[in-house]
Each structure stands twice: as structure tokens, then as C-alpha cells.
């Protein structure tokens, strides 16, 4: 089957979902009211609270939620065949992510633009704030570990990407300083920055940076050495102000996101490449598609982090209550489209460059180890359809993924430092809450330990195991948000099944995956991941109890409010 047929079919489903299901959500579940005075109007100050054109707001929202995660998960998950991966992306996006992202935005807007963590505290109970912090702590630890591995793997496999990526750092700093000092527009400098970045790919191809010799002399693999280098860099990067590197690099990233999407989908449309992967692919071993598909693809099907974005600045900019459907639901569809691109690249694109799909996806361990390389090769295949040389396209795709992953890593370590300081305040530890060097070092050492932990006999399984653990924490974040939304909808005496069904499904799959993982970790005497898995499992249990109690209480309250009216 041509990939373009899959692409068009998914786009049609997304369009129908937006046309019908999002309308159902807007009218019957969230009861969006065009006359409701949103916080953007109620507190309008032109600073934080600004009624914003919905297309502008969508741009702000979508570029924040898109990143490397909806690429990596699907690139691994196609190991079970392209149909299960695609079905979960489509069903998850339509029935879980759309509900979750729109709902987070609506609940926040209806509560004076409060953030989801605070909403959990007020809507469910005060304990939920600590639950939220605990989930975020584990989530960030795993995010930082997996994205360090992502970058290390890509640098090891694509040494031609090293020069462009490392030059991007001073390039971004220079752009930031230039814009700041000359007070000129960012358009030309950032476009020049992107052009320089992509021109450097040719330099990278001519001078690939391969550190395997140095790593061997140090008694480690090249990927391990890259991971160590990355965490040293991140320790420094997370300590410097965001305006020096993070924000200037944003200008380059915002261009790259749309360039990458254009290259992928244009390549699909022009190339008419056939799907090289089987529709269904039985996989040997403990990681069956049921339940692991649903935690391998988190971002791209449903991602808990979107609730933080929706309830952050987005809810303060919503002009009309009814715009929540466009911004929230369309943002979810955008993320789903990125995941679709990853599936097409790893199932059709890689055949263009002659990669043997069966060898790359022999089992889950091999798939998780080769997934990123497969995506990079797949994008190179699509890029070749529009006249870009394969060697250049490969490096281009690696640069795009690393740029996004590096931003996530920079931000993630910085955030983890703040979380550790906050935990220090809660437990009354002055060194932990006040000593920046200590909190930053801990924020770096925790994920570094996870990223470098030996994985027993099968070293290639390390990334796949961490990635699915990361997926479980992301789904728990989504679960917490869906519980808050379900309580909100129930309290409003409307049907909350649109939230309860995906919430139940996600929690069931997450718990099941965690139990299978735990059994395996204990059997293999993996005393690093077993306690981590157990801790996340306990958080899942805590979340289930809180969600059940909160929804039941909300139903009781709603009935008590309704009953007198019924009797009158």
C-alpha cells in the first residue's frame, strides 16, 4: 500500500474527528459558551492575560507541545507492525489527546486560568499536589535519561551531525546577542542561522566526529561517552540564563519544526513509496503490543505534559471560550500528525534508502535501539524524493531530532533542579533547597545513572525499558489531568464518559505494563529499575484511589444538587 494512502486516510479521519467529535465535546461535554468571559478578558492586562487571535494562539500552543517525543515512541512501536501503531495514534489522538488537551484548557479557563497542578489540589484534594509533584519528578528524571540516550545514539550513528549541532550552540548565542544589541528583527538572523546550520551539514559530512577511538581507550562505548559529555554540557547549560542560549535557539527550532514537517509530508506525497513494514508483526519476548504499545507511544497519542501547556499561558490568552476547541483539539491533531510522520518514515521512508526493515525490527530490543536511526534514514528517504541527497537528508533529520531533544534536555534538567529544591523545602533540607550546585548535580546524576545503568545480558534493551517507563509516567500525568477534567464535567452534571473511558484505559494499560516490567526487573535482579518501577506503580495506585474517590464524590454531589430540583 502506498504511504500516501495512509497519510490521506489519517488526515481524513482527523478532519472528521475535528468536524464531529470535537463539536460533540465542545457542545455536550464542555458546554463551551461564546458569552463566557474568559480570564483573558476578565483580567485583561496586555501582559499575561491577553485575548489572542485563535490562529496566533494555536501557533504558540502547537510549537510548545511538538518535539522529539512524538517521533521516538512511534519509531519504536512500529515493531508490532504499522497498523497497531497507527491505530493507537489515531484513536489516542481523537478520543484521548483531543479530550485531554481541550479539557485541560477548558477547566483552566473556567477556574481563572489556574494551572493543572493547583487544579488537582482544589478539584480533587490537597494531597494531589504532592502526587502531581512526585509524578513530575519521576517524569523529568526519565525524560532527561531517555533524551540523553537519544542524542548519544544519534551522535554515535550519525557523526556528521556533531559539527552542525555543536556549532548551533555558539550560533544561537550569537544570534541572541546580535538581536539584543542591534535591536533588529529576528527573521533574517534566524533564517541565516538555519541556513548556516544546514550548510554546516556539508562540513559535518566532510569531517564526521567519531569518538569511538577515544571512548575505547577510556573503556566505554562511544554512546556512553557522548551521554557523559551531554550531561556535563547540560549541567552548564541549565545554569546559564535562558535568554543566552535556550530562547535564541528557539528561533531556529521554530523554523526547523515546520521545515521538517514539510520535508516529510512533501516527500510522502511526491514519492508514492509503498509501506515496507508488515501491517502486523508478532514480536517474541515479554514486551507484547498489549499493553506496551500504549506506553511506548505516549506523546503522539496522548501526552500528560500537554495539560501543563494548556493550563499554563494558553488559558490566559483564550479570547473566546469556544476557541478552546480549535486550539486544544487542533493542537492534539498536530501532535498526532507528527507521530504519523514518524510512522511513515520508519515503515515506508526507510525502504527508499534500502534499509532492511525486518532486520531493524527483529524484536523489541533491536527496535528500541535502531528506532532513531530508522527515523533518520526514513526522513532521508522522503527528502530524496524532493531532490535532497540521501547523505545530506540523513544528517538533516539527525540535526532536527537532536535540536529538539537538546532543548528538552536543557529545560528538563533546569526544571528538575527546581523540583529538587522544592522537595528540599518540603522535607526541610536547607542544602537541597538552597545549594544550586548540589541541586543541579543531583538533577544531572539521577538521569545519568539511569542512562548508563548496565542492562544485563542484553545491553540494547536499556533504552527500550527506560522509554516505556517514561511512557508510564507521561500517561500518569495525563491520567491525573483526565481525573481533574472528569470531576469538573461531573460537577457540571454532564456526562464524563469521554474522560472516564480514556482515563480507565490509560491507567489499566499503564499498571499492567508496570507489573510486567516489575516482574522482569525482579527476575533479572535489576535493583536499579525495579524500585523505580515499583515507585511509579505506587503512584499509579495512589492516582487510581484519588480519581475513583473524587469522581464518586462529584457524582454524589451532582445527584444531591439535582434531587431537590427533580422533586419540585
Amino acid at each position, binding site marked *: 500500500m502506498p504511504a500516501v494512502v495512509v497519510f490521506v486516510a489519517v488526515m481524513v479521519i482527523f478532519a472528521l474527528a475535528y468536524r464531529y467529535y470535537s463539536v460533540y465535546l465542545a457542545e455536550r461535554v464542555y458546554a463551551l459558551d*461564546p458569552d463566557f468571559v474568559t480570564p483573558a478578558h476578565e483580567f*485583561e*492586562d*496586555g*501582559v*499575561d492575560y*491577553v485575548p*489572542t*487571535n485563535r*490562529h*496566533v494562539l494555536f*501557533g*504558540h500552543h502547537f*510549537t*510548545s*507541545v*511538538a*518535539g*522529539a*517525543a512524538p517521533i521516538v515512541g512511534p519509531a519504536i512501536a512500529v515493531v508490532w507492525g504499522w497498523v497497531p501503531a497507527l491505530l493507537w495514534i489515531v484513536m489516542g489522538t481523537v478520543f484521548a489527546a483531543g479530550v485531554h488537551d481541550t479539557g485541560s484548557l477548558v477547566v483552566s479557563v473556567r477556574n481563572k486560568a489556574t*494551572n*493543572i*497542578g493547583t487544579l488537582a489540589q482544589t478539584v480533587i484534594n490537597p494531597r494531589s499536589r504532592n502526587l*502531581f509533584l512526585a509524578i513530575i519528578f519521576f517524569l*523529568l528524571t526519565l*525524560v532527561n535519561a531517555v533524551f540523553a540516550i537519544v542524542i548519544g545514539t544519534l551522535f554515535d550513528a550519525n557523526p556528521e551531525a556533531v559539527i552542525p549541532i555543536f556549532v548551533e550552540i555558539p550560533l544561537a548565542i550569537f544570534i541572541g546577542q546580535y*538581536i539584543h544589541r542591534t*535591536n*533588529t*528583527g*529576528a*527573521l533574517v538572523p534566524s533564517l541565516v542561522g538555519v541556513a548556516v546550520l544546514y550548510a554546516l551539514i556539508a562540513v559535518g559530512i566532510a569531517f564526521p566526529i567519531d569518538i569511538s577511538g577515544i571512548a575505547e581507550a577510556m573503556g566505554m562505548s562511544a554512546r556512553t561517552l557522548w551521554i557523559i559529555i551531554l550531561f556535563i554540557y547540560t549541567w552548564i547549560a541549565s545554569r546559564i*540564563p*535562558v*535568554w543566552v542560549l*535556550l*530562547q535564541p535557539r*528557539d*528561533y531556529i*527550532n*521554530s*523554523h*526547523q519544526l*515546520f521545515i521538517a514537517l514539510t520535508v516529510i509530508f512533501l516527500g510522502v506525497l511526491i514519492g508514492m513509496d509503498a509501506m515496507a513494514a508488515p501491517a502486523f508483526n508478532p514480536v517474541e519476548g515479554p514486551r507484547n503490543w498489549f499493553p506496551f504499545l500504549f506506553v511506548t507511544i505516549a*506523546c503522539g497519542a496522548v501526552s500528560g*505534559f500537554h495539560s*501543563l*501547556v494548556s493550563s*499554563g*499561558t494558553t488559558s*490566559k*490568552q483564550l479570547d473566546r471560550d469556544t476557541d478552546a476547541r480549535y486550539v486544544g483539539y487542533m493542537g492534539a491533531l498536530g501532535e498526532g500528525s507528527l507521530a504519523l510522520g514518524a510512522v511513515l518514515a520508519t515503515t515506508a521512508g526507510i525502504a527508499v534508502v534500502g534499509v532492511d526493515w525486518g532486520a531493524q525490527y527483529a524484536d523489541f530490543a533491536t527496535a528500541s535501539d535502531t528506532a532513531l536511526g530508522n527515523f533518520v534514514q526514513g526522513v532521508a528517504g522522503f527528502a530524496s524524493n524532493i531532490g535532497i541527497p540521501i547523505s545530506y537528508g540523513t544528517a538533516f533529520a539527525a540535526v532536527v531530532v537532536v535540536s*529538539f531533544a537538546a*532543548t*528538552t534536555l536543557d*529545560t*528538563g534538567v*533546569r*526544571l528538575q533542579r*527546581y523540583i529538587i529544591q522544592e522537595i528540599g523545602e518540603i522535607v526541610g533540607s536547607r542544602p537541597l533547597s538552597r545549594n544550586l550546585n548540589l541541586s543541579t548535580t543531583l538533577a544531572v546524576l539521577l538521569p545519568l545513572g539511569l542512562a548508563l545503568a548496565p542492562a544485563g545480558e542484553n545491553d540494547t534493551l536499556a533504552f527500550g525499558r527506560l522509554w516505556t517507563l517514561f511512557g508510564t509516567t507521561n500517561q500518569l500525568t495525563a491520567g491525573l489531568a483526565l481525573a481533574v477534567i472528569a470531576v469538573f464535567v461531573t460537577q457540571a452534571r454532564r456526562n464524563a464518559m469521554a474522560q472516564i473511558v480514556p482515563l480507565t484505559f490509560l491507567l489499566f494499560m499503564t499498571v499492567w505494563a508496570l507489573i510486567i516490567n516489575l516482574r522482569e526487573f525482579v527476575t533479572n535482579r535489576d535493583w536499579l529499575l525495579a524500585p523505580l518501577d515499583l515507585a511509579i506503580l505506587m503512584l499509579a495506585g495512589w492516582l487510581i484511589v484519588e480519581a475513583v474517590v473524587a469522581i464518586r464524590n462529584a457524582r454524589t454531589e451532582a445527584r444531591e444538587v439535582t434531587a431537590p430540583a427533580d422533586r419540585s
Partner: protein
Amino acid sequence: MATGQRPPHRVMLVREWDSQTSGSGCCGRLGGEHCDVGHPDTFAHSRPLMEAMGAIYRALRRELPRERVEITVVDPRNMVWLIPTILRDGHRRGLRGGELWRQVNAGVRNGAIVVDGVALFAHDYPDEDAAVDAVLRELAAASA
């Protein structure tokens, strides 16, 4: 004004939103003021311009009726929306070629104010009174 109908004039205040992070995915839009996760001071450097533009926004909102003038605050990184909009508005004003390009280049600057496709304050920090006067003058010119 009927729902969905755009006001005849558009004023864009271009400045960075704090805590906007492109392509970070799992860590996007965190930290900064009023945020659950992260430090409120993370984006403190963005606040002075946000506050200054906020004052201009409030002054313009007092002066200009919503049904006649749309005032939009845009992040300069949102170029996918910003560039076509300046081009479209400028073209509607009769700007062509190099002049239109100059407006685009000036209009995507952090701190720019764009009135119906014409960029104001392309090379200096906008003062509240001067900005409001200039916007009103430009709107009068656009209406003429």
C-alpha cells in the same frame, strides 16, 4: 460585529511570551510566572518588555473600539502566522516589493508594533505615549 467577522484594522504588538519554548515537547511552556513547575524568575528578563507592551496595549484598548481595531500580541517566533499576516495587511495597504519586505523584517522584531502591515518603532524601544500617538496616526492614515 458579527461572530467571525474581523475588524477592519489590525494592530500587532510583537514581543516574546515568557516560558514559550519551541520544539521542547515534554518540557514546553514551563517555568516563569504563575507556573506549577519551575521557577518564577526563569523568564524575568522577558518581563520588562512584556510590562511595557502591556501598558501600550491597555492604553490602545482604552482608545480603540474592539469592533474597529483588533489588537493582537504575537510572539516573534510565531513567524508562520506573523509573516503572511504582515504581507497580507501590507499588500492591502498598497505596499509592494522591497518596501513590503522592509515592513516584514521590521515587523518581526521583538518590540515592534505593526499597524495594518506597517511596522512602527523598528529601531527603538516603544514609549507608551509615543506609541499610542503613532498608532492612532497610522490608523488615521490607513482609514484615509
